[in-house]
Structures are given as structure tokens and as C-alpha cells.
């Protein structure tokens, strides 16, 4: 688990994606530009500002008792697709809000939070969540 978190630290910690020479932006980092097919991509850090395109409230139990890696969440929790102000969309939890406060099109901003923990003494994965702006 550790290496798979470490590989994506850029994306999870700093909202870093890719910018193509054709100016198309991607999140997370892309290998090939979806627009022009170029592999000439450079790092691009997103502002973390965006708006909710669509959302849902997850009410199922997510973690099985047999799993060591558990999401650091309450139940229910909110999952949204957020469109970043620069264009790309991102799937993320909406934190610090009651479900009834969330609306389509609401402005949100990214925050740095605990995402999951691999066992009681295990590695904690940090990353982006969003809060209502």
C-alpha cells in the first residue's frame, strides 16, 4: 500500500496534474493528452477552486471487517464530481457539510485531509477533499 500512495503524492497532496503543449489540462497526471495525443506533458498545479457538477450521499457500509485499509469517514458521506475552475473534473468527498447543505453548482474549495488508514498502526493516506466555499 505504501508505494502505491507514494507514487501518487503529487496528485493527492498538491492537486498536481498535467498540462499538454496544446494547453489541454488533465487531472490526475496523464501519460498521453486526451485531446491531441501528445506525450509532451508538464506538471500543472490546480488552484483547488471549483463547483459541484453532481453529487450523491453514500449510505452503504464501505469497509468490510476483514479489510485493514479503512476510509476515514463518517456514514453517510458525500461524494461529488467537482469541475475545477481550470476545466478538468475530479471525484472527491465533500467534507464538513450536511447532505442537505450540498447543492448542484455549489462553489467548493479543496482541503488537505486524512483519506484512509491501513490498520490501526498503519500508514495514513492523506489527500484532497472539498468543502463548500
Amino acid at each position: 500500500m505504501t508505494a502505491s500512495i507514494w507514487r501518487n503524492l503529487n496528485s493527492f497532496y498538491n492537486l498536481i496534474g498535467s498540462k499538454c503543449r496544446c494547453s489541454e489540462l488533465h487531472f490526475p497526471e496523464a501519460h498521453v493528452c486526451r485531446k491531441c495525443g501528445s506525450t509532451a506533458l508538464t506538471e500543472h498545479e490546480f488552484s483547488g477552486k471549483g463547483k459541484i457538477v453532481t453529487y450523491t450521499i453514500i449510505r452503504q457500509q464501505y469497509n468490510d471487517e476483514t479489510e485493514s485499509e479503512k476510509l476515514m469517514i463518517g456514514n453517510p458521506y458525500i461524494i461529488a464530481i467537482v469541475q475545477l475552475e481550470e476545466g478538468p473534473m475530479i471525484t472527491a468527498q465533500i467534507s464538513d457539510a450536511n447532505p442537505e447543505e450540498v447543492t448542484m453548482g455549489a462553489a467548493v474549495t479543496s482541503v488537505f485531509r486524512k483519506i484512509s488508514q491501513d490498520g490501526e498502526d498503519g500508514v495514513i493516506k492523506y489527500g484532497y477533499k472539498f468543502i463548500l466555499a
Partner: protein
Amino acid sequence: MTRVAIIGAGMTAFGQLWEKGLIDLAVEANNKALEDAGIGRKQIQALYCGNMSSGMFTKQEHVSSLIAGASGLSPIPSTRIEAACASGSAAIREGFLAIKSGLYDSVMVVGAEKMTDVSSTASTRILSAASSQEFEASIGATFPGLYALLARLHMHRFGTTEEQLAGVAVKNHMNALNNPYAHLRKKISVEDVLRSQKIADPIKLLDCAPVSDGAATVILASEKTAKSLTDTPVWIEASAQASDTISLHDRDDLTSLNASAVASREALRQARLENQDIDCLELHDCFTIAEILAIEDLGFVGKGKGGKFVEDGQTEIGGKIPVNPSGGLKAKGHPIGASGVAQAVESFWQLRGEAANNTNPARIMTHNVGGSGATAVVHIFGR
């Protein structure tokens, strides 16, 4: 190039089948199909197995050869095809291509999944492996959650209602009442759906296909072999497959599954047909919103008009285009790898007049989606 026919079909009942393992299910379906086709085991030249996740559901990989051996088919080549929930149709497509190429005259395609040996929480997590582990599942997006994101946007943009979504479930449960193979043979009302447990708003328990065990098998043959064995072959008139980004958030349009639209257009082109030439649909209704998206994406109703189309009864048996007369994934059941093959089995029975709810079609389109639309497979079958 030869035409390709289905010459025999068989399936297990779908449901929570505690007494049967993956191999029991696959062999049962295979034996029924062999008997139905009147073909000997020695004439089967290759086996294609649709299965999504035997490793995570039962800790058994390499099920292709395991099924071949248990079915008395070794030493023929046997290959497992995985494309999430579209594994079954993708396996049919591989069998179709193998016969089309001229390499084989008769092959078997089986789809099978054993899902109920794990808890419902575990099966939710296993199914989430069909989405992006890194950027969807790992942050808490479940599969019903992903379809809920699509549903809410469709409702927001087009005015689709929760009652219209519920109407899909009510209709498919009604169709499954007559189907002896169906998992959920129980009549439900719109109110039942609306009052059922919330899973991922606006998706409720009765908007979801069940977690099922089951297997389905078809035997495919070249035109020459088919005509030597049966007077009533069912022809595969088109086989099309398309892909899309695995994550919803990487797509341009979240009110449509583009892979479905691309595969449908390609299938109609191959068969030289128009939408109006299709008499019946067996399509991928893993959630009720998926059926509404599908009738739009496949071109049977305009964008955003699917909810009203369902509400007006146009997808019922006797409507403009009957959709899922078998009960669909929603009520017939959804043993992941088996579902696509079961759609072909239903089509075979419909076209031979042997289906539980006979709609007497001349042509059927099937539509099988992997994940949240990263794979779509469309077939057209005809008499």
C-alpha cells in the same frame, strides 16, 4: 466470411445459490447448451469464459481451464475474458471473431459468476474494482454511488424523476414474474421502490440489480455447421464493442455513456439496419438510471426523453420497443460475468419463440456495459 449462428443455449437459474460453486454453475449451463444444440463435446473447438472477478469473490483464478476440465472439454484452448460487467458479451464477441476468422467451426461461450460467498459489503468493494481504484473507489465512490452521480445530473438537466426511475424497476420485476430463471420474481410498485432503503441518493435498494450467482452458455457455429445441426439457427448479425475512460470525471458528457452510443451505431452499421428495424431490447439495467441512459444512448429515444418514454409504457411488452422482457439485470439477476451471455440466451429463446415472455421479434439488440460505461458491447441477433 461465414455468418455466425447461435445453435444452442442453456443457463442456470439466477439467485443466491448457496449449494452451488462457480464450477457447478458453469458446467450446468454448458451441459444444457450442449444438449440443446445436439452437438458432441468433441466438436467444440474452443471455450471462451466471461468472468469478472473469481479471484476476489472465490480466491480462484485460472477458471478458464478449470471450467474446460470440469466440463469434459480439455484439451481445447480455453480463455477467460474480463471486461467487468460486460465480460459475458465480450466473451461472445471473441467466440464470434474466432468463427468469423475461419479458424473454428464451433465454439462454446460461457459466462459465470459466484458472488454470494462474500458479504454484501465485500461484494460492493469487489464491484468497485471495475472503476478507478486510485481516483474513484479509494476515496469512497461505490458503484451505486457512480450511477447515482449520473442519475442526479440526468434528473437535474432533463427533469427525469425518481418515479420514472422506479418505473423501470416495476416493469422489469413484472417481466421477471414469468421467467423461471429469474432471481427476483416479485411484483413491486413505484411506492415500494421509493420507500426502499436509500443506498446512494437518489438510488434506493429497489433501483439496484441484485447480487446473484449464475451461469449462461451459448454455442456458436459457422453457417455450414449450424445448418447441418439445426433448422432454426439464430444469426449474430452484428457484434460491436467500444471503450471509454474508466473514470466518470474524465468524460466530456455525464448525461450519456458514449461507449454505448458508439457500439450501437457500429452494430447497426454492420447489420445495415436502423433503430426502427430492432423489435426488442435486452439491455444493461444494473441500476434503473442505466436503462434510461441506454434507451437514449442506443438511439431509441431522444436525449433526456428516456424517463417520459418509460413512464408512458413504451418499454413494456406491447409498447413501442419492449425492453428487458426477461426481467433484465434488475429482476432476472446480475451474476456479473454471466449477464451478457444470459442476454444472448434470452435473445435465442425470443427468436425461436421459446422465451417466457415471447415478444415474437425478428431482431433483438443486446447491450452490455462494463463498469460505469468504460466498456460497452452491442450485439444484434436475427432469425
